[in-house]
């Protein structure tokens, strides 16, 4: 009996090892260095794909799309009704990190990935860098010809610093602005700040004159919002370009970065701002219930405030430009996303067409800016009079786009590391220590630089000096 057990065990072990070895061998062969993402042309492969939307023209070729935009079904329906050659088969595969985890899993499994996926600008480079390239360069399908249809910042974010390559088609942006409670500033007779110096003064005045809340919150875990705040002082903390794909630069020790972090450390210490974590239920609530007199944020927060429960009904909200350091401060952006074509796309050419055309029509853009509250990157929408004159009852019928559009147009785009999720996590840890525990700014930022540079070398990148 013992003997038979051993034999069975040995057989199982041998069988698994053999099959695994086979997998390993295959994987090794595919990872040819410097190769481009694979393209395919199977027009029938998606015929039986499951979709979240109802396909009206079942005989047309299908392209599968993963995206988490609000009102996506409406926009997909419009696109499908206008196309006879192709139908979008859409699935909401979770938002942000949840969807990226599914992408990672499908990449490892070498199957199951959608043809077109929504990807935020800050994680785009991780799918096109190094030996494994999973997003198709769309310039081979004429994507470089639509460059003029998008804002400079958005286009730089999808071309990743290369002249010709296009790794995704921009959809939305998050121009950095400030929303504030006019009623609170008026009540205490405090001027709405336009510079960071005024912001500090206004915060102190509000407190001195009896306001029980704070002027705002600084989020140590704000990931992209910290990049925007640092960029205002010209600090280019992350440096990566697809035209020089084996080099990575990290620099948190510039004069600008140190000044920005010292500023927020001081404001936190003086209790001018709180340092709550962002995007928690509590954080959303305290923005709308009058705990804060203002929030410096991306435009997408502007659109999503009205849905939050527990809001102060007497509030009088207004939108204005984010505070600046001086007249030379550049306009900045936080967030936004694009549609990319994966190397598992069944018919790459058709997938590229969907990525390029899904959002580039007036009816879809109309839903996108009204129902979904996305901030457009498509200049035909962005510059249209109708969009500029849109009023928002939540902001007392202010024409908020007259504030936001110039910011979006002035934004030039940033670079992000090919291992941005890791960089964000380390960045959050160090910034938390600086603003909450009063850790030394210089040595903390130096340690962050060292951690990220070490990781880059460990991953095989050359670290720029």
């Amino acid at each position, binding site marked *: *009996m013992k003997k038979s057990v051993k034999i069975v065990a040995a057989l*199982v*072990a041998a069988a*698994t*090892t053999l099959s*695994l070895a086979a997998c*390993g061998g295959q*994987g*090794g062969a595919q*990872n040819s*260095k410097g190769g481009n993402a694979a393209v395919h042309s199977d027009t029938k492969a998606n015929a039986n794909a499951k979709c979240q939307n109802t396909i009206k023209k079942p005989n047309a070729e299908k392209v599968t799309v993963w995206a988490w935009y609000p009102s996506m079904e409406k926009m997909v329906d419009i696109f499908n009704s206008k196309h006879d050659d192709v139908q979008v088969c859409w699935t909401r595969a979770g938002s942000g*990190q949840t969807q*990226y*985890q599914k992408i*990672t*899993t499908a990449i*490892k499994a070498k199957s199951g990935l959608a043809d077109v996926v929504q990807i935020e600008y800050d994680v785009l480079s*991780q799918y096109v*860098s*190094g*030996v*494994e390239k999973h997003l198709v360069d769309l310039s081979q399908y004429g994507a470089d010809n639509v460059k003029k249809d998008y804002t400079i910042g958005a286009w730089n974010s999808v071309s990743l610093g290369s002249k010709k390559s296009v790794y995704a088609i921009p959809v939305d942006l998050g121009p950095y602005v400030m929303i504030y409670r006019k009623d609170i500033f008026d009540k205490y007779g405090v001027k709405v700040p336009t510079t960071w110096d005024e912001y500090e003064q206004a915060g102190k005045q509000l407190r001195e004159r009896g306001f029980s809340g704070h002027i705002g919150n600084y989020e*140590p*875990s704000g990931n992209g919002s910290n990049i925007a705040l640092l960029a205002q002082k010209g600090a280019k903390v992350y440096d990566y370009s697809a035209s020089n794909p*084996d080099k990575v630069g990290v620099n948190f020790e510039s004069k600008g970065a140190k000044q920005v972090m010292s500023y927020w450390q001081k404001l936190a210490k003086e209790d001018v701002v709180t340092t709550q*974590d962002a*995007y*928690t*239920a*509590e954080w959303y*609530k*305290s923005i709308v*219930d009058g705990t804060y007199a203002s929030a410096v944020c991306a435009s997408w927060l502007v659109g999503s405030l009205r849905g939050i429960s527990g809001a102060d009904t007497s509030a009088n909200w207004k939108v204005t430009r984010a505070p600046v350091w001086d007249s030379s401060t550049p306009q900045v952006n936080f967030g936004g996303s694009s549609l990319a074509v994966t190397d598992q796309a069944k018919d790459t050419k058709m997938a590229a067409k969907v990525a390029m055309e899904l959002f580039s029509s007036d009816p879809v853009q109309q839903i996108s800016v009204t129902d979904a509250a996305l901030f457009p990157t498509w200049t035909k929408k962005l510059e249209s009079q109708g969009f500029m004159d849109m009023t928002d009852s939540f902001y007392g019928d202010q024409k908020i786009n007259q504030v936001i559009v110039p910011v979006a147009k002035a934004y030039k785009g940033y670079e992000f590391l*090919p*291992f941005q*999720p*890791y960089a964000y*996590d380390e960045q*959050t*840890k160090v910034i*938390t220590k600086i603003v*909450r525990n009063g850790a030394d700014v210089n040595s903390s930022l130096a340690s962050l630089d060292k951690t990220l540079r070490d990781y880059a070398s*460990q*991953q*095989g*990148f050359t670290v720029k000096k």
Partner: protein
Amino acid sequence: MQNKAVPKPMKKTSGHDNRWGWFFTAPFGIIFIVFLVVPLIYAFYVSLFTYTQMRGTVFSGFANYARAFRDPIFLQGMGRVVVYTLVLVPVQLIFALLLALVLDAIKNKFASVSRLVIFLPYAVPVVIGALMWGFLYSKQMGPFTSIFALFGLPTPGFLTPNGIFGSLVNVVTWQWTGYYMVILYSALQSVPSELYESARIDGASEITIALRIKTPMISSSIVMVTIFSLIGTLQFYTEPMVLRNNAPSVIPPEYTPNMYAQALAFNYNQLNYSATVSFALGLIVVIFSIVFMRLTRNQSGLED
């Protein structure tokens, strides 16, 4: 109608018995092999390779293990769960034992209702339980702000760097104590009551009976409960993962080794190193369990 078939005399060869034995264990055996043994072997195989963005996947032998046991993040996480274990295991065990002994001593309607109520948190899915506590701990939405205000006290910071340890200990204890209590309680039911009678005749008080007779009689169950609790705490994952949504900067993504393995695999695209971390954690859990079982050999009845 007619029973033509002549019943065959049962052949009692060991080969025949064996076949039936295999037949009945097969459903378990297959699932055990497919869902436990094979993934384990696969994880080990994966852990012998290293993937880096620029070099791709290369065979690296045990280099990942050398890295893991020198990785400050992994070691910190390990240290954290060891501290949790040192606090959580005794706390849960003492509460569970105390409750079991009390409920065993009073046998009325109240006791059976209490038993159910104490067990109830275990019936709540862990994720739901943690979400619920996340709301209770919230300064603005939880009830504690108003409760503490009644006594003129400030709200305790449940989700702050200083408060998070206690908050998590509380969630886990709330969830699991009832379950352990039920195991110990049912063990108490199998102790023959003659023992208590003779003890009473010898003049033992109820407390003496509880501590000197009941507790030693169920020592094997106590050991089992401790091992459950030990393994569960070393693999700490769901509760901090859920509470992280409420306090991302207080609970870093690599708070416990399991969370670190998850972050490595799905956020940092380091599947191989993640497998190493998981395997290393498994190894440590096995070592802890074996050491504990050795130490309690006399109590557990598991001598081998």
